[in-house]
């Protein structure tokens, strides 16, 4: 099937639009969640959405999307509240609180799910799709709900931009300015819960957390300002969503949700490796360069010290001596010094026994060695 044919397919259009919306809203809200160190709160809320999905189904009696999403939102928010109370009122630390809340709510969800499946209700078909998502089941009406939620979230972020920024960076200072910090934090958390609800249909409760975390983490690698990070995270989310959806449409039978997660995650992998300044490769390169510079400076200062020790500015150092002193072959480094005009590979006087040629510092080499020695201990200046 060609891409044009793909895009004219009604179901695929829905799936692609849904994936794009999901990427957009989770990229933007995920940025704030990640910066506020609440990435795992998203995970807890998405797992806790499962009992809500089941309760919504039981109450409505059918697989009606509105009541299911409301149920998901309710239990997701309840889990966030429980988790907050656990850490505030007991001595439990955040990670333990998140872990306990996540598993208890998820266990309740699975119990309810199996209970519904045992009821032999014909309309329960495919409720377990909420575990890993079933993008193909996305309807036009679902898209309207997702679009509405996304629009509200984006409007709120735009309107409360500076408040959200300050609350994420320095909540204490925000409080001292008189901002309603507690309310702003609740609002940010509830919006993440909304993003989770948007993603239930597409990627399911188990993988939804990755959709919140991954675009933000990837965007952080490339951006220097919050504005850039939010825009880039949204872009990565949308691109990953569309790419995953198309990939799954091209390869009939492969699950859409996990493919979306995998395409976003590959952007994370590339970003963690390649991004300038923060990337892994960049760090490694910088370390190699620093080590090389260190070695070249060491050999240069050794030549200088030998000259000082012998009280002879044109003292001729033997290659073997330098190798022994540094415990490695210094030939390559010395050649580098020679190319820069800092040292010379001079012939020894014919009447002197020993090797035919030796190393001598040039006046430029002496000046450079003195500069290096002088800078020692003032590295941070």
């Amino acid at each position, binding site marked *: 099937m060609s891409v044009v044919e793909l895009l004219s397919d009604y179901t695929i259009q829905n799936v692609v639009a849904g994936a794009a919306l999901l990427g957009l809203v989770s990229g933007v809200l995920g940025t704030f969640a990640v*910066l506020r*160190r609440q990435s795992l709160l998203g995970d807890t809320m998405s797992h806790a959405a499962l009992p809500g999905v089941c309760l919504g189904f039981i109450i409505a009696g059918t697989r009606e999307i509105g009541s299911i999403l409301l149920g998901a939102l309710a239990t997701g928010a309840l889990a966030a509240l429980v988790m907050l109370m656990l850490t505030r009122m007991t001595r439990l630390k955040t990670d333990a609180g998140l872990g306990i809340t996540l598993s208890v709510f998820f266990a309740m969800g699975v119990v309810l799910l199996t209970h519904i499946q045992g009821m032999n209700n014909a309309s329960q078909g495919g409720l377990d799709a909420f575990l890993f998502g079933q993008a193909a089941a996305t309807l036009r009406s679902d898209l309207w709900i997702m679009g509405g939620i996304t629009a509200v979230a984006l409007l709120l972020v735009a*309107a409360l*931009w*500076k*408040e959200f*920024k*300050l609350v*994420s*960076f*320095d909540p*204490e*200072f*925000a*409080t*001292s*300015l*008189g*901002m309603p910090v507690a309310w702003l934090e609740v609002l940010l958390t509830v919006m993440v819960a909304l993003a989770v609800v948007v993603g239930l249909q597409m990627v399911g409760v188990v993988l939804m957390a990755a959709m919140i975390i991954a675009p933000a983490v990837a965007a*952080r690698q490339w*951006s*220097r*300002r*919050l504005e*850039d*990070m939010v825009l880039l995270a949204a872009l990565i989310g949308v691109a990953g969503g569309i790419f995953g959806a198309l990939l799954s449409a091209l390869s009939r039978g492969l699950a859409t949700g996990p493919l979306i997660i995998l395409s976003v995650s590959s952007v994370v992998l590339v970003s963690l490796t390649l991004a300038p300044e923060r990337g892994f490769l960049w760090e490694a390169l910088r370390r190699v360069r620093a080590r090389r510079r260190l070695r070249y400076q060491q050999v240069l200062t050794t030549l200088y010290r030998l000259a000082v020790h012998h009280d002879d500015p044109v003292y001729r150092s033997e290659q073997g001596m330098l190798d022994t002193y540094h415990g490695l072959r210094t030939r390559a480094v010395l050649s580098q010094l020679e190319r820069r005009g800092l040292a010379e590979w001079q012939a020894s006087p014919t009447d002197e026994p020993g090797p035919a040629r030796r190393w001598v510092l040039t006046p430029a080499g002496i000046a450079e060695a003195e500069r290096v020695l002088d800078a020692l201990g003032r590295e*941070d200046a």
Partner: protein
Amino acid sequence: MSTTLHEPDLALHVEDLTVSYHSKPVLWDIDFDVPPGVMAAIVGPNGAGKSTLIKSVLGLVPTVAGHVTLHGRPYKAQRRRVGYVPQRSSVDWDFPTTALDVVTMGLYGRLGWLRRPGRRERDEAMAALELVGMADFAKRQISQLSGGQQQRVFLARALVQKADVYFLDEPMAGVDATTERAIVDILRRLRDEGKTVIVVHHDLQTVRSYFDWLLILNVRVIAQGPVAKVYTAEHLRQAYGGQIALLDQGTFLSEEAAAEPVERAE
């Protein structure tokens, strides 16, 4: 707003303030007054509640009892007249933003809802950065600043608040000598303009040379008043207990003795 002022002649008036954490008192029955136009230090051992005192004045931690007024009115009515420099370690410096942007945050309170900082705000923030000697670093990522530079950025953010009373939480902790000098100079200039500067300080050695007002704290108030009267071996021993045993008595007996090296509090 009520027109009757409570202790209007004091820049800061704290009465009967008590703060507790898990039913353990952190601050007990604090009475603390600071007249306007002084540079005051709050010193005390670890866990004495120095930061908590500042934070409870600013409404950042809940109080069990007591009241606080700034120039005669409660804090809520005086927010615009207060500047705050939190501890540098209280935020994540890997946050994606620039030095200039952090300084601009000091103006958010004045801007109010929905309004965004514009050219005027940027110029003000830039002027404050210049004042702390950080103009060249305006566009720099805050994660790439040194500790001293980060502290200067925080100070600049408080300066744009154009306050009458400044609270600083350990601004000299972990900064180099140049930055410490620069910070003290700026604080002195503020005081000379008639502002009140209240600093949580950890270095007993410099108390007498930097400050003119002093509160010695250890959950309760040990002593308060002009530095010359309050900075005595007796008061410090009461606050620090055995930790201060190495103190040289002579330092306190003679008036003209230079500040001798005193064991650091932290």
